[in-house]
């Protein structure tokens, strides 16, 4: 009898339903861990894995949660963000889930975290060696909206046949004068696989290139895990005459004055008065604490 079986026999005498450390059973963790190692070994390739149902709905971060649950240990410090913010409801919900099922320390400070699970943003504070950034991914296949069939897109990846993607981007240029993709902007990893960076704004794409941290991507509903090891080349697709460029904001954060960050637009009143503030709440708070101020406070 395997060790799992013995563990289960102990549990059976207990309550109507019992759960393991970090929720997932050890068999599931092993399966996910094996997929993570393959993902690291083949950067940008989507490794199929037998995604488990998690106690939060598909589409709400189950892929990221499964990855985090499979790597996390008692010595970790976990940060969870959604839209760059630690205090959005789903970030709170996922952070509480891990606090409850693992008892690990949680933090909002990017610099204090060993694991950061994210939806839709990469923190503004540069990541460091040894950190792991876990992305929640809804549609891992960058070619999916050009070709809905898995059987077809798999062949395209196998042959590194990415012409359709270039055609799509070039059609944007022909029509609009520039590429009209603003988030989930496709990248090429180590010159081989075209990869979906998850629906992060393209503003964050340059942070993925030569990043000191390990980047892991989990797509639960679509059953794929992929990875970018540290210090790996990640290039946003573009053309010589139309180089990739990120969004630029024409004003700094109203709270902390940062002018090199992604900003949220906040509607202030019924007249539609707007202000622009950092989407990364930790970064903004740290700057304010350090004495930086935006125009709102001046």
């Amino acid at each position, binding site marked *: 009898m395997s060790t799992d079986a013995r563990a289960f026999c102990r549990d059976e005498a207990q309550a109507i339903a019992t759960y393991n450390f970090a929720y997932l059973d050890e068999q599931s963790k092993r399966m996910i861990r094996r997929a993570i190692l393959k993902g690291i070994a083949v950067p940008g390739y989507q490794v199929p894995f037998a995604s488990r149902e998690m106690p939060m709905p598909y589409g709400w971060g189950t892929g990221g949660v499964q990855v985090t649950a499979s790597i996390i240990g008692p010595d970790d410090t976990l940060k969870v963000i959604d*839209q760059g913010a630690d205090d959005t409801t789903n970030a709170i919900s996922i952070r509480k889930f891990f606090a409850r099922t693992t008892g690990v320390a949680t933090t909002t400070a990017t610099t204090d975290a060993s694991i950061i699970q994210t939806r839709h943003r990469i923190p503004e504070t540069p990541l460091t060696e040894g950190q792991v950034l876990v992305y929640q991914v*809804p549609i891992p296949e960058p070619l999916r909206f050009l070709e809905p069939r898995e059987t077809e897109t798999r062949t395209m990846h196998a042959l590194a046949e990415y012409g359709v993607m270039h055609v799509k981007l070039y059609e944007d240029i022909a029509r*609009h004068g520039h590429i009209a993709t603003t988030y989930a902007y496709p990248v090429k990893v180590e010159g081989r696989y075209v990869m979906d960076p998850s*629906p992060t704004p393209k503003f964050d794409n340059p942070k993925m290139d030569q990043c000191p941290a390990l980047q892991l991507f989990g797509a639960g509903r679509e059953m794929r895990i992929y990875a970018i090891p540290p210090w790996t080349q990640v290039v946003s697709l573009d053309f010589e005459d139309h180089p990739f460029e990120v*969004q630029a904001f024409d004003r700094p954060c109203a709270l902390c004055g940062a002018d090199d960050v992604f900003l949220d637009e906040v509607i202030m009143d019924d007249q539609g008065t707007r202000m622009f503030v950092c989407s990364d709440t930790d970064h903004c708070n740290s700057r304010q604490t350090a004495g930086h101020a935006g125009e709102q406070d001046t």
Partner: protein
Amino acid sequence: MYVAVKGGETAIDNAHRLLADRRRGDRGVADLGLDQIMQQLSLAVDRVMSEGALYDRELAALAIKQARGDMIEAIFLARAYRTTLPRFGYTRPVDTADMQVERRISACFKDLPGGQLLGPTFDYTHRLLDPGLAAGQAPETPAVRAPEQAGMMRVSDFLDQEGLLEPAPEEAAKPVPDDIARTPMIYPLDRDARLQALARGDEGFLLSMAYSTQRGYARSHPFAGEIRIGEVALELDVPELDFPAPLGRIQVTECQMVNQFQGSAKAPPQFTRGYGLVFGQAERKAMAMSLVDRSLRATELGEDLVAPAQDEEFVIAHADNVQATGFVEHLKLPHYVDFQSELDLVRRLRAETGAGDEAAQEDSE
């Protein structure tokens, strides 16, 4: 002065307390027991067991209670629990010919050995609301027949004897079947994986897909060869034992659809099969499953692919209601970072085309 709103954690806690309160409802009304759900809402329990892929009546009843009767939510609860359970092994294939039959009908024959047994069916009831039931009237004692001593031969086996029905589709011999709960689905699927996906699939989705084949979107000329509901024994081979270990009995519904088939380049004229097997008493689901199974065999049988119900990736990738409800409902989550990116783009495009002059001006104020 703008201050980012905090307090999401308190809001979530409060929402969940309110949910628990609404779930309980009026405290003057008796609390619903799991035994009541298991006994009196047993078909709801069956659906949660089959689509939750977990044969446990008590947990299914708990899920229904906890979900306030929302079936997909209850199925989700069952799935999220079952997925954490260790896998000990695979039972021997159940032999439905050995079923303790409670209901068994065939639309293909007027009578057959073992007889047509209606069992506890809604069929032929007049759908009139019953004031007596509302008043809590006790039902009459049912008439029961003596249980069969031996198994009841399947209709498909009678047809097999004459060679009119295709042999059961043979997969290349596998030491263990595919297991969609343990390995990622790789398209195209083998039939065992496909049938598993259909067995867990959403009843409503499969019903509509099946219905579409009857209305001409990949018509399959079906006859309900046999539907049977009853209990089957489960047995597990254990290396240490030289006999299969009996694990108990489960109730299942099996539907064998028999489809007239005029032949193709790949297969001769014959009757073909569609198969459905579902936990509990779930006849609608088993019938829909068997129709969809048959339509998904189009490629194998050399039929033209003309309709959604024949498209394996389309049907299987969208049949799971836990996946579907999650992704549809995830649109509730904040998407403001991406929306901001799109706002920026649309403003820019409008400015470039001149359409956005007015808006751009307002925006810069």
